[in-house]
């Protein structure tokens, strides 16, 4: 990841990221050069830094996958769990300790396939957890198999003749399941991503930030989409701001994806409601 080799560089924007790297960890990281996960990490850290949160009050919980490796590199409480289970672990942390800011880093396979049931129920509870779902349309870590967001007809190592299945839209799913903040960004627009991350972190309730990113190593290569830069460039072309999308016809939106805050509402939060129960039943 670029920020690491820039350690001695004069003060520049990425310095803040360096400030949050976990001491004692032997770099380099596990990610391929050009992988978008590092971009997501940078945007997230800058958003968090601006919020000024005490890092002893931040718990990062992740599942298994390339994306889920992020917490090892960052100097917060880090719980790298089992495949798909980040959300129930995070639920345990948050419910036990509502004073902690709990952030889940997950991939499309981790959150929506093996962890799909946990995902919808965490949305339903509206527990105050922020999920950053790094969607690269494929299983990166295991070498390019199809995921629940691999588009129909796309290629992966387990869909060698094109994907016969339909794919999930994580944002629609989250909204329907009860999430109270749902947003989508892309690694092609980092200032926007940083802003969305900040909003998601600050939202009181379950928040989902889906980040559309590149796995050029597998998804890109198997679908002849070019290198990392070409893929990210394409995201720039395909991403449509919500406001603009509203004025477009379904035909015009074909092949595009909508970015921005897609859903936001105020609803009672799970831990708050339980606290009221405790207040009500505990002996006076």
């Amino acid at each position, binding site marked *: 990841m670029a920020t690491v080799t820039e350690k001695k560089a004069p003060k520049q924007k990425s310095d803040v990221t360096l400030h949050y790297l976990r001491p004692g*960890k032997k770099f380099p990281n596990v990610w391929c050069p050009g992988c978008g996960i590092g971009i997501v990490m940078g945007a997230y850290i800058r958003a968090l830094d601006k919020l000024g949160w005490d890092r*002893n009050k931040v718990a990062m919980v992740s599942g298994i996958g390339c994306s889920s490796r992020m917490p090892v590199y960052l100097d917060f409480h880090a719980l790298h769990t*089992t495949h798909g*289970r980040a959300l129930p672990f995070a*639920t345990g942390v948050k419910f036990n300790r509502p004073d*902690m800011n709990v952030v889940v880093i997950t991939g499309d396979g981790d959150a929506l396939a093996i962890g799909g049931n946990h995902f919808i129920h965490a949305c339903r509870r509206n527990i105050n957890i922020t999920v950053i779902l790094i969607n690269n349309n494929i299983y990166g870590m295991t070498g390019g198999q199809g995921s629940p967001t691999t588009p129909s007809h796309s290629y992966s190592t387990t869909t060698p003749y094109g994907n016969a299945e339909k794919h999930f839209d994580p944002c629609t799913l989250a909204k329907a399941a009860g999430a109270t903040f749902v947003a989508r960004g892309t690694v092609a627009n980092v200032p926007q991503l940083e802003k969305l991350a900040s909003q998601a972190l600050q939202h009181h309730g379950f928040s989902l930030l889906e980040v559309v990113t590149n796995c050029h190593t597998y998804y890109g290569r198997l679908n002849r989409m070019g290198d990392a830069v070409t893929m990210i460039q394409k995201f720039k072309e395909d991403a449509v701001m919500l406001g603009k999308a509203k004025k477009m016809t379904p035909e015009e939106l074909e092949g595009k994806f909508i970015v921005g805050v897609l859903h936001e509402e105020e609803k009672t939060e799970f831990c708050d409601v339980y606290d009221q129960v405790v207040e009500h*039943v505990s002996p006076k």
Partner: protein
Amino acid sequence: MAKENRQLLQGNAACVQGALYAGMRFFAGYPITPSTEIAEGSARELPKLGGKFIQMEDELGSIAAIIGASVSGAKAMTGTSGPGYSLMLENIGYAFMTEVPVVVVNVQRGGPSTGLPTKVSQSDTMQARWGTHGDYSSITVAPSTVGDTLTETIRAFNLAERFRTPVTILLDEVIAHSREIIRIPEPGEYEVIDRVKPTCPPEEYLPYEITENYVTPMPAYGEGYRYHITGLTHDQHGFPTNKPSEIIVKLDKLKKKIENYKDEITKIRVEMMDDAEIAIISYGSVSRAALQATMLAREAGVKVGCIQLYTIWPFPEKELLELCGKCQKVIVGELNMGQIVHEVERILPRDISINTIQRYDGEILTPVQILEKLEEVL
């Protein structure tokens, strides 16, 4: 002196009482017969103490949630039966690897699969030892009465906290649903152990340091000690490793912290063994029938004694060898097709005749059946 607090409780309710006594403040679970009353009791009692109860979407989530609660500072438990325990095994393994104290109650029913939801069994004995993949040492306790369920639950929490490990309580349907009058202990009557916390400055803290007793102090979230927890095999910093030398250190830690301290973990009840020529070995609800049968046989002049295993895992090898070494015959009673008996065969000398009495039809072993077996063996 204040009046004794006596209550008519079923085993599942006694389990909740024991857990609360030990300081449980977090429970996550998913309903399943014959364990559901543990969740229901926790749902009712925990909020009164400022504790937390959550019904998760499944058992995969329940075990994950209690591990999350434990790393962030709570004493946490879940309760289930075979089908749920099978689902929990994934993250029970995670708790072994990451050394997170949690208590898991398995109220056994008949299996495999959905099996016999309302019938008794002891067929998850080996699963409790070896259920999750990989190499590790594990602790399992097995009460036999409603009263012991309370005290063994306290002990399970103490062992979990002392050894930083998941501890399984193997209950069975009979104990879980039998009602007996028990005395609720007063605070201070039983020792309650809490995990050791680090005292060094956070920058010097090694989250998986090899200490003298192989157990590393464990901070809660928010106490200034930020470290990485992973189910990947890790070094003493908690960072994933592939180095053979570091892999050995980690796996030896998991084993030695338990196997080297078996004396602290083993608990057995020994009755009438002094001059016994025959020993009846059992655990869980079978031990009640075994004790009754032993007393009746003694009245008839038979030199028989009985040994009840409260600690099943690690297996009390040394104690059984000492106790049974002088016997000519041993009878192992279990509600399964033969599980603990293989451990007994493994450790006892070849010249001792090892006999079994087993039931796996969903019914209990009665004292009369054990007496009949005794007659046959004599």
